[in-house]
């Protein structure tokens, strides 16, 4: 990585030094707004290389038609500090809910690692913020945890019987999306994107580590519980924690999990190359 790519993206010479050529800078207006918020939280702008990677993510998700489906979303990598990583890409996800995470849990290239016992993020997004038959949830995992049975994100409301959940017990790995039945992507470990989406009342799709499965599962009205990340929100309390490393999460309306995975994979790889 050239030294120029290490300059903060908003440095006067970020686009290049006079007489020494230039380099691309972020241009997407939503991305620039996000980068400014991250800078405010971090205390300094991210490097040009990171900023361009984030810009490509905004551009690619918009081109693929998945950006508008992201309603609560954080890129848990790239930012200089954990505070910057908790700045939402879109929506009003809380930026101040670290719930026990510390800077030592955060890697700019790999993401945020749970402790498997106490740490989680409250997305602030109730399950019923998205329509019963138009919802998704995803995390991007860069390192699997050691715990045998975990929930990477979501909700479990046992009284309503409606779950929005990313599930992994080393036998079943898959998702519930406004339902009480899992769509399993069998014999998979939860590394890379783990997601679930639903765009109809009759079926849901789960995607784990590059493989998708769609099954007939009737939808059930979503609940008012906020989705958590690194565990589930079980009837209002964090439960079944994961010690995986997660570099991205999103919740919102239905989308192409494959297109989202491509965009996030490119983003995390590009951040790694930039740093």
């Amino acid at each position, binding site marked *: 990585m050239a030294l120029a790519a290490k300059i903060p993206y908003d440095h006067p010479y970020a686009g290049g030094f006079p007489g020494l050529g230039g380099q691309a800078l972020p241009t997407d207006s939503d991305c620039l707004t996000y980068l400014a918020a991250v800078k405010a939280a971090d205390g300094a702008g991210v490097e040009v290389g990171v900023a361009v990677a984030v810009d490509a993510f905004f551009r690619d998700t918009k081109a693929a038609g998945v950006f508008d489906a992201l309603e609560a979303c954080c890129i848990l990598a790239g930012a200089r500090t954990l*505070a910057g990583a908790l700045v939402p890409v879109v929506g009003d996800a809380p930026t101040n809910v670290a719930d*026990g995470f*510390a*800077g*030592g849990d955060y890697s700019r290239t790999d993401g945020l690692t749970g402790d498997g016992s*106490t740490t989680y993020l409250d997305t602030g997004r109730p399950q019923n913020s998205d329509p019963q038959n138009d919802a998704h949830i995803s995390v991007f995992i860069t390192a699997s945890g050691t715990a045998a049975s975990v929930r990477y994100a979501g909700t479990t409301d046992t009284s309503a019987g409606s779950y929005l959940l990313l599930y992994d017990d080393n036998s079943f790995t898959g998702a519930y999306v406004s339902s009480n039945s899992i769509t399993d992507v069998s014999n998979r470990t939860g590394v890379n994107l783990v997601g679930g989406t639903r765009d109809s009342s009759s079926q849901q799709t789960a995607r784990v580590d590059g493989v998708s499965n769609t099954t007939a599962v009737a939808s059930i009205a979503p609940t008012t519980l906020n989705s958590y990340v690194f565990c589930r929100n*079980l009837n209002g309390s964090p439960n*079944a924690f994961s010690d995986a490393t997660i570099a991205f999460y999103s919740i919102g309306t239905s989308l192409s999990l494959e297109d989202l995975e491509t965009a996030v994979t490119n983003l995390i790889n590009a951040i790694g190359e930039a740093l």
Partner: protein
Amino acid sequence: MPDIDEPLPLPENPATVAELLPHLPVPYDYARQYACVFSQELADRLVEVQAANPEQFRVTPLALTDGTFMIRGAILSEVPNGLYGGNFARLDASRFDEIALVPWAEAVALLPQPDPEGP
């Protein structure tokens, strides 16, 4: 004559958060060995302080099976000026000797077992 910039040696077995006050922030790898364990009264006070300052980073105390509450010791790497510094400054420092530092594994063993309800 010790170097004026040399940090104070960290206590090997600190009993309470009060003992660590001169050392804060402590290194992450040191802090994560411990859990901060305290009474329900202090847990309620922490929640109250955080609720009054919703713009600051917060941490949720978790109930242990013996009636006490815990938060990760790792947060001591983020005070007084880090992630949790805003609310830390609003706590009553005179009561930090009531916050026990317990080895992490011992505190985790007192967390309620994962509830098998639902998926």
